[in-house]
């Protein structure tokens, strides 16, 4: 017992005598568009610890023993490195193996290449080398793009990082996120249908329990401006709060809520509850849509170095995309407002169709059931 006591005490006292360093691996990544080139230096000692390199058990690791295990080394390492671009996983494959020396010993050097389905503005990297085997292991990443490099350290406490996107200069980066914002609102049917549901009645007037054709373009314009402004202000608030991780909601709740908002907005045209205060609905539900935008932005990743600029660019892109839709909608709707086609087909029929589609989304998202896919498969 006393002997054991002593060993621990001395272990404490002896900390200053630590030699070498703890386990590190050196990862270099070079990115251009959708292609990646990488080099990963991993200590032979650590690899032996994980997958056993010393085949004959003599305590020496020879080049022959390493060479025989190159495929296993590549498989082991690459299974523990996930690189995603624009929310989609890049495929990594080893290209060459060699050897190098660092201050604490000999390292296996693996060169690899990668292909990403999408050229997103950033890379999301999930680094799990030696997870569970050595919590003190660090992955030292050197990312090279646009001729500039930056370093990032991965550890057991922070295995996931968003990197890159901030070496291209502020304006190029701003433009990238602006573009992504526009793309997102145009590709996001739920946001467009919500906005359309609120805008369809803007060229009409509710009087004595009935809809009638609006008289002035000015009144219609003011109505549209109120709805769009309320929606914009609301979703900008929550997009910012969520992107900065100040408020975080579960994505299933957000997505289901957005579907519900579309159902209610469409039903409000058929059975008006808020006939002349639609901007209130635009604001209230807009808060929810902001969380949805933030989810998309999260997949893209925000570069840590210039978070505000990218967030602003993305938000501005969303607004620009939305204004383009409004600019196309308003003159057309105003021209057609007194026709049967507008009143019956677009306004009434459209609202019914939107409510129906959104109801299916709601069930899909709330209960995680892919109804549209099932229907498509049936056809």
């Amino acid at each position, binding site marked *: 017992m006393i002997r054991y006591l002593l060993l*621990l005490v*001395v272990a404490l006292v002896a900390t200053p*005598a630590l*030699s070498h360093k703890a386990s590190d691996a050196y990862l270099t990544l070079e990115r251009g568009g959708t292609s990646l080139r990488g080099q990963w230096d991993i200590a032979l000692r650590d690899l032996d610890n994980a997958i056993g390199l010393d085949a004959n058990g003599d305590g020496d690791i*020879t080049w022959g023993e390493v060479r025989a295990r190159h495929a296993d080394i590549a498989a082991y390492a690459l299974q523990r490195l996930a690189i995603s671009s624009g929310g989609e996983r890049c495929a990594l494959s080893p290209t060459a193996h060699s050897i*190098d020396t660092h201050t*604490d010993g000999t390292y296996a*050097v693996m060169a690899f290449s990668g292909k990403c389905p999408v050229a997103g503005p950033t890379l999301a990297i999930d680094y799990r080398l030696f997870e569970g085997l050595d919590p003190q292991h660090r992955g030292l990443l050197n990312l090279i793009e646009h001729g500039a490099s930056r370093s990032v350290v991965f550890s057991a406490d922070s295995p996931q990082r968003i990197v890159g996107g901030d070496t291209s200069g502020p304006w190029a980066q701003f433009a990238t996120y602006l573009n992504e914002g526009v793309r997102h609102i145009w590709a996001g049917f739920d946001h467009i249908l919500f906005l359309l549901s609120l805008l369809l009645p803007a060229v009409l007037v509710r009087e004595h329990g009935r809809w009638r054709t609006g008289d002035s373009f000015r009144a219609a314009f003011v109505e549209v401006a109120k709805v769009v402004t309320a929606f914009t202000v609301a979703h900008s608030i929550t997009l910012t709060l969520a992107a900065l991780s100040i408020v975080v909601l579960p994505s299933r709740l957000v997505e289901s809520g957005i579907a519900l908002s579309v159902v209610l907005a469409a039903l409000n045209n058929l059975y008006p509850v808020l006939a002349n205060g639609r901007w209130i609905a635009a604001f209230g539900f807009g808060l929810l849509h902001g969380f949805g935008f933030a989810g998309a932005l999260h997949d893209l990743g925000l570069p840590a170095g210039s978070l505000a600029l990218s967030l602003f660019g993305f938000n501005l892109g969303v607004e620009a995309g939305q204004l383009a839709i409004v600019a196309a909608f308003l003159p057309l709707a105003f021209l057609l407002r007194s026709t049967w086609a507008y009143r019956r087909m677009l306004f009434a029929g459209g609202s019914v169709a939107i409510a129906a589609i959104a109801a299916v989304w709601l069930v899909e998202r709330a209960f995680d059931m892919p109804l549209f896919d099932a229907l498509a498969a049936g056809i």
Partner: protein
Amino acid sequence: MSRRWIVLALLFATAVGATAAPYVPRDDAVVLERLPEKGDPALAQLKRMRAALAARPDDLAIAIPVARKALEAARTLGDPRFLGQAQAALAPWWTADAVPAAALLLRATLKQSHHDFDGSLKDLDRLLTDQPASAQALLTRATVLGVQGRYADARRDCSALNGRVAPIVFLGCDAGPASLSGAAADAYESLALELATLRGGADLREWALTLAAEIAERRGDFVAAEKHFRDALDIDPRDAYLKGAYADFLLDRNRPQDVLPLLANDVSNDSLLLRLALAEQRVPAARNTFAAHRAELAARFDAARRRGDSLHRREEARFRLDIENDPQAALALARANWGVQREPADLRILVDAARAADDAAALDIATQWLASTRMENVAVATVATVRK
């Protein structure tokens, strides 16, 4: 080619190797790495135990001996990779609140090794709330408190050990904090008296001798200090902590030529390589190896910094001050280090760097610490009180 030149060539190859391009060895038989368990049965056993643990990671009865053995290996070899292995063995109990006492104790010890002193003390406080009489926990907490310079608290824990453990353990526990807070003469006398009659227990004897040597050195009794250092080295000539302390003693006595043979085979240990380089710097005949060792140390500190390591600040401060002749950088490191740990060696580098950088504020920190603790430390007192 003489053997010395071969060694020298290898050293340069290592230093340059850190930045050299990757290569493909020509021959399958080339040995690339020597595993630490080669020729070390204890480490080979640890490797087998870890394999058994991998099959049953939640088995506390396997995890505890693995963590303990890995911790011992980290200490004897000075190799922090074993600290990572120890932590991995404790993974199921690393973040939990309700943890078995044995796992909690090892967790506290590991946190201390990573300089997470507050986390370590929190675990030890909890352990001692449940088991106030745990001798091991008291001893460990006293050590952590001592490293933080909380000598009165450390002595309170040591005194709780009196009668529960062998007298040498109680005396050794108390001697450190007592000697640093105005009771060095008494602490030394008690320790020396106990050592004179101590039977058996080579490990305990070596530990107590090292403590006695350090106290005697701080009190200025260099003859006694050297005798204790040498007696301790006779018991374990490989103890890295002891060798480092003795090398510092020799450097302070201006005997660098005695350091060279002591540390000739310890170049893989950062702390000992630093002492070796400090000695070589002062011996003209060792100029060539000094240049290689200086480059190697710079590369190692750089590698540690890249991974975000702050465990080497004390050593790096000394490297910046005495080898790179950069007092400002040394002082910044020494001050940051002093904010975390307050052992005599931390005070020493603080006062040395402050003196070299001519920084009155930093010198005041040191002199006030000496006064408030009533610490007897001739080396520090000399530097701190002599005005230029």
